[in-house]
């Protein structure tokens, strides 16, 4: 019996090894290097290995770093709230109201945006949101506007939704579709209203999927550079823009590494807390 178990574990390990190696080489390795780099020195635009905390103290002691940090946190949090609220009714509709065939088609159409580069989609939004763009042209027909939408936080949010919304709908739909519909019917039979059914039956049962969708949305928005730069006009800059600014000017990769580590730590804390909550058993 124990021989069989040992064979089995060797077999399992053989399959797991590529994944472990991949993560080690391309995630853990660079991560360790980035942490080490945050203690390096820059002299004449060249990095020199060193062990000094100057990059950390200098970056974390500046007001503009924390302004940028909380702004990024706020924008990503807002993107999660808006995405979740917009995606949920659509996901409910796809999960409960349409046939399997229609749902498959809808999922296919939700995947289609990913066929095009995100950057291209963002540039398309520039044309739509511009002062002389499509939306303002529409407003002008009613004698209103033009409104400034590009190079604002509104523009940034549109970019985040472009990135996250299709993914959130897909994840939420899968999660909701797996709910045992008899439970929903039972709730109705026992006199539970529509809204109450959603909040006391549907949401708790789909909690894991809903939270995973929200976590994805947070991670994608928190680290996104394209939307705040090209639709938000880099005004004010988010942490990802700060990384670009810091690294391109003066070769300050070590300080950019500090910003990146702060971002990774934040994302890990948010993701682990959310996942912990998602899988927490009811008492």
């Amino acid at each position, binding site marked *: 019996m124990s021989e069989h178990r040992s064979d089995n574990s060797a077999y399992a390990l053989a399959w797991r090894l590529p994944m472990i190696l991949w993560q080690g080489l391309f995630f853990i390795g660079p991560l360790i290097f980035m942490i080490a780099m945050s203690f390096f020195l820059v002299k004449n*635009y*060249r990095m020199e290995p060193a062990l000094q905390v100057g990059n950390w103290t200098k970056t974390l002691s*500046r007001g503009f770093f924390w302004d940028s940090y909380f702004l990024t946190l706020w924008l990503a949090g807002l993107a999660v709230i808006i995405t979740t609220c917009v995606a949920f009714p659509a996901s409910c509709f796809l999960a409960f109201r349409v046939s399997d065939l229609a749902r498959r088609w809808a999922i296919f159409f939700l995947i289609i945006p990913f066929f095009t580069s995100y950057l291209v989609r963002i540039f398309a939004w520039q*044309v739509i949101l511009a002062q002389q763009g499509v939306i303002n042209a529409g407003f002008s027909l009613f004698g209103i506007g033009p409104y400034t939408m590009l190079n604002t936080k509104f523009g940034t949010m549109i970019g985040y939704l472009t990135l996250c919304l299709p993914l959130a709908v897909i994840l939420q739909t899968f999660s909701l579709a797996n709910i045992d519909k008899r439970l929903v019917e039972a709730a109705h039979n026992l006199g539970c209203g529509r809204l109450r059914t959603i909040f006391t039956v549907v949401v708790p049962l789909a909690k894991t999927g809903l939270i995973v969708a929200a976590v994805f949305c947070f991670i994608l928005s928190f680290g996104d550079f394209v939307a705040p730069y090209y639709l938000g*006009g880099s005004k*004010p*800059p988010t942490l990802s823009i700060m990384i670009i600014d810091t690294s391109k000017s003066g070769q300050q990769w070590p300080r950019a590494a500090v910003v990146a580590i702060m971002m990774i730590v934040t994302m890990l804390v948010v993701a682990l807390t959310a996942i912990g909550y998602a899988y927490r058993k009811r008492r």
Partner: protein
Amino acid sequence: MKKLLNVSRRDALKAGAAAVLAMPFVSRAWAQAVEINMLAWYGHGEPDMVGAFEAANNVKFKPKYYAGGDNMLALIAQSPPGTYDIILSDAEFVQQLNVAGLIEEMNAADYPFDDMIYDDFKQFPGHWKDGKLYSMMVRCGHLGVSYNTTAISEEEAKSYKCYWKPEIKGKVGHFDWHLPSLGQMSLLNGNGAKLWDVDEAGWGKIKETTMSLRPQVGGYFDYGGTFNGLKNGEMMAMAGIGDWITGVLEKDGAPVKSVVPVEGGIQWTESYSIGKGTAKADIVKKFIQYMLSPEGQAVSAQMAAYPGFAITNGGRKALNETNPKEAQRTGQMDGAPNDPVTLIKEGRIHYRDIPKQQTLEDWNDFWQEYKNA
């Protein structure tokens, strides 16, 4: 016509076989082309600039583009020595390339110094060290007030103060590089020729002036964003740029323009250097000679990505012959009121430089603070 289209199967097979047999020769011809690695601002390695030279010399340029001198130094620092055969640098950064030992000495006799349009260009700061030449100036342009003519009048554009015009609140953009924008603020503060050489008090005032512009600012843009911002009317004025951006849009019919204001303008200057340790120094030298020839200068002045001024008499003459309209638009005609050389002689233009009493890091730190304000 019918006969032409009536190709037999045998003919098609013959043509196909010929094409297949010719393939090795085609690929061999490509393989023989010498590859030249170029580090430059966007557009310098594009066909309109290097196409004729590539065809005539069987070489192929492989460009790596950057935006801003700091960015260029960072890219070089990340690459092993000898990565780049030719480096196009902003003139103010040549000195740092030289100090870091990244560029080869050049032979002054190889280049047309006698034909330079202005004496200063023969001994451009930082290009020579101990009587030895390290970089060859190839083109330049002027930065000033770049504006949308529907929002700012010609009279208003005569001063950087127009950036503060209440009607364009939220519509002033910045090219996202601290040096030209802060240089313009220094000029507005009346620092004139000493715009890069300011003491702590002067630096404090530059920061103050810049911060007061913050409520007007609508965004910070890279090269593409700067174009789009002005073209789609999102930005009505753009600090830190000049005709190198508006010139392209103007030719496209956009109502934008650049002028040198009364406080003075800044000259950007681009120079070619030969990368240290390159095995292709001879062909690189030939390319730099081509770019300084009348033909190369005319091509450079009309560069599709962003126009510049010819810096040799031969180049200016060639531009006037091949595209008099562009020569007139940019003032590159003897006697034109906006002749770039006249502007320099009048003391209205100052060569872009790096800060003398602060470090680039100081300026960059403030720039980040400004963007986050």
